[in-house]
C-alpha cells in the first residue's frame, strides 16, 4: 500500500507561501514601527510579548510532542514527526526573539502610570509593577511592600537567568531529538531510538516542573500583585492545544501541496481527538482557576477577574470561552467530523485564533488596560502584529522543514506501524 511513496522526498520551500509569509513579516514590521511612532509603545510591547510568547510556546510544545511520542513509544505518529521536529528546530530562534522582546521591555523605559489615573512615573515597558526602579527600596516614593516580599524571586538577574535556562534547556533537548532522528535516518536500528527515549523521559520531567514557572515569569508577573497556582497548567493547556492545532493544519496544508501522502484520515482523526480532549482540559483548568477565586471571593484575588469583567473586555472574555471550549466541543466531538479534513482545518483555525485571544485576555487587561470601547481593544495594531508573527512562524518552520533530507524519518523503528495506522 505504501510502497509507491518516496521516502527520500524533501520539502521544498518556494512559491506562493514563501512570498506571502515574507509579505506578512513586512506587514508585521510596518505595524510595529507604526505602533512605536504613534506613541502606543506600551501596547506595541504588550503585543510583541503576546506573539513572542505564543511563538516560543508553540515551538516548545513541538519538542513536547516529540518527547511524548518517544516516552509513550507511540507508533502512529512516526510518519508525521518531522512537522513538530521542525517546530523544535525553530525553538532557538523563537526563544531568542522572546528574550530580546522581554529584555527590551525591561530595560527601555517611558513615562506611564502604574494604575489608571495614578501619578506619572518613568517605568519599563513590560513588567513595570515589579521592575520599576526603587520599588523595593524602603523610603522610595514607589516602595511596594508586596513586591518587596516577592523580590527574592522576582528580580531582574534571577528572572532573566530563569528564562535563559528554561528556554535554553528546552531548545537543547529539541536539538538533540532532531539530531538523533536525523542520525537514525543514516544508521537505522534501535540505537538512536533508545537514546531519544532516555532524553525524552528527562525532558518531560524538566518540562513538567519548569513550564509553570516559565508561565509565572513571562505572563503572570505582568500583574505581580496577583498570583494563581493554576496559572502554569492553564498556560500549558493553551500552548499544547494551539501547538496541536498548528501541527494538524500544517499537515493538512502539506497534503494539499502533494507531500505526506501516507498521512490518512486515521492520523488526522488522532490529532483531532487530541485537540478535542485538550480543549476540554484547557476549559477544566481555566474553570478551576476561576471557580476557586470566585468562591473564596478575596479582593486581592478577584481583582484579576474584575479587570477582565470591565465592559471593554467582557465580550472578549465570553468569546474566549465560546471559541476555545464550545467550538471544539460541538464541532469535533463526533467521529465523522474529525475525519472530514475541511471541518478539522476550520477547527484548527478557530483554535489558533482562539488561543491568541486567550493570551490576549491574560496580558492586555493588566498592561494596556481598558481603552475606550470593547471593539477598540483589538485594533489594527493587534491584527498587524499577529499577521507579522504568523508570517514569521510559517517562514521559519517551513524553512526548518525544508532542511530535513527527507520529510519522513525513513528508518524510524515504528514507521511501518504508522504507515498502516488504522483506527
Amino acid at each position: 500500500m505504501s510502497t509507491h511513496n518516496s521516502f527520500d522526498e524533501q520539502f521544498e520551500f518556494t512559491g506562493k507561501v514563501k512570498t506571502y509569509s515574507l509579505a506578512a513579516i513586512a506587514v508585521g514590521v510596518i505595524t510595529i514601527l507604526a505602533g512605536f511612532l504613534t506613541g502606543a509603545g506600551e501596547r506595541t510591547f504588550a503585543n510583541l510579548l503576546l506573539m513572542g510568547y505564543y511563538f516560543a510556546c508553540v515551538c516548545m510544545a513541538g519538542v513536547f510532542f516529540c518527547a511524548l511520542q518517544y516516552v509513550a513509544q507511540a507508533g502512529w505518529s512516526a510518519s508525521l514527526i518531522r512537522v513538530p521536529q521542525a517546530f523544535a528546530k525553530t525553538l532557538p530562534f523563537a526563544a531568542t526573539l522572546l528574550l530580546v522582546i522581554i529584555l527590551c521591555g525591561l530595560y527601555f523605559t517611558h513615562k506611564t502610570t502604574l494604575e489608571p489615573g495614578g501619578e506619572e512615573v518613568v517605568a519599563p515597558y513590560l513588567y513595570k509593577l515589579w521592575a520599576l526602579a526603587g520599588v523595593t527600596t524602603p523610603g522610595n516614593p514607589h516602595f511596594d511592600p508586596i513586591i518587596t516580599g516577592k523580590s527574592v524571586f522576582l528580580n531582574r538577574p534571577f528572572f532573566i537567568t530563569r528564562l535563559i535556562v528554561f528556554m535554553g534547556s528546552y531548545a537543547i533537548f529539541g536539538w538533540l531529538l532532531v539530531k538523533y532522528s536525523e542520525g537514525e535516518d543514516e544508521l537505522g536500528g534501535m540505537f538512536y531510538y533508545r537514546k531519544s527515549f532516555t532524553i525524552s523521559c528527562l525532558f518531560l520531567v524538566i518540562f513538567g516542573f519548569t513550564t509553570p514557572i516559565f508561565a509565572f515569569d513571562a505572563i503572570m508577573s505582568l500583574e505581580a500583585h496577583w498570583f494563581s497556582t493554576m496559572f502554569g497548567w492553564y498556560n500549558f493547556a493553551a500552548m499544547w492545544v494551539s501547538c496541536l492545532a498548528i501541527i494538524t493544519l500544517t499537515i493538512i496544508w502539506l497534503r494539499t501541496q502533494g507531500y505526506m501522502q501516507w498521512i490518512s484520515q486515521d492520523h488526522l482523526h488522532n490529532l483531532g481527538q487530541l485537540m478535542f480532549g485538550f480543549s476540554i482540559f484547557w476549559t477544566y483548568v481555566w474553570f478551576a482557576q476561576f471557580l476557586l477565586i470566585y468562591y473564596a471571593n478575596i479582593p486581592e484575588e478577584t481583582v484579576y477577574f474584575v479587570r477582565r469583567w470591565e465592559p471593554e473586555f467582557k465580550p472578549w472574555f465570553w468569546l474566549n470561552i465560546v471559541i476555545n471550549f464550545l467550538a471544539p466541543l460541538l464541532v469535533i466531538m463526533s467521529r465523522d467530523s474529525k475525519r472530514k479534513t475541511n471541518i478539522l482545518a476550520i477547527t484548527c483555525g478557530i483554535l489558533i485564533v482562539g488561543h491568541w485571544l486567550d493570551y490576549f485576555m491574560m496580558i492586555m487587561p493588566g498592561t494596556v488596560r481598558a481603552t475606550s470601547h470593547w471593539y477598540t481593544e483589538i485594533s489594527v495594531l493587534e491584527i498587524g502584529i499577529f499577521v507579522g508573527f504568523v508570517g514569521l512562524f510559517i517562514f521559519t518552520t517551513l524553512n526548518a522543514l525544508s532542511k530535513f533530507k527527507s520529510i519522513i524519518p525513513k528508518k524510524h523503528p515504528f514507521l511501518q506501524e504508522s504507515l498502516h495506522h488504522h483506527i
Partner: protein
Amino acid sequence: MSSTKYILGIFDDPDELMHGIDKLQKNSVPIYDVYSPCPIHGIDAKLGIKDSRLGYAAFMFGCLGGTIMFSMVYYMLVHDWPINIGGKNAFAIPDFVPVTFEWTVLWTAFGMTFTFFFATHLFPGRAPRVMDLRATNDKFIIAIDAKGNTPHADITNLLKEAGAVEVKHNDRKYVSYE
C-alpha cells in the same frame, strides 16, 4: 436432513482467519459471525459491520446526567431551601458546574457500560453465551449458519483449505447456556 445448526471454523492465527473469510466470501457463503479473543484490524470493513453507535448512546447519557444534576441542584439550592453561602445569589451557576460536570461524566461512563451490556447480552453473574469456549482464549473462530448453506462438506473443505485447524458441526447454537 442433517442436525447441524452451526459450522465453526477454528483457526490458530488471525491472518489465516482473514484469509478464510475471503475464501468464504468468494464462494458466496454468508458468515454468521466471527469470534476472536483480541481485536483484529480491518475485520469490520471486511465483514461489512457498521460503525458502533455506542458513542451516541454515551452522548445522550451524558446530556441526561448533566441535566438531571443541574435540575436537582437547582431544586435543592434555589427553589426548595435557599442558603446564604458567602453572600452569593442562591442561583450561583459557577457553583453548579463541578457537580454537573461530574454527573455528566458518571452517567456517560455508566450509561455506556450498561448499553454495552445490553447490546451484548452480558451482565455480571450471567453465564455468557458462546459458541466455543476457546474463542475467549487462544482460538479464532468463523461461525456459519448451517441452515440453507449446503453442502456442508464443501464449507468444511473451504475452511480446511484456508488453514482451519479444526472444523466443528454443532447441533446447538451455544455451548454454554446458564
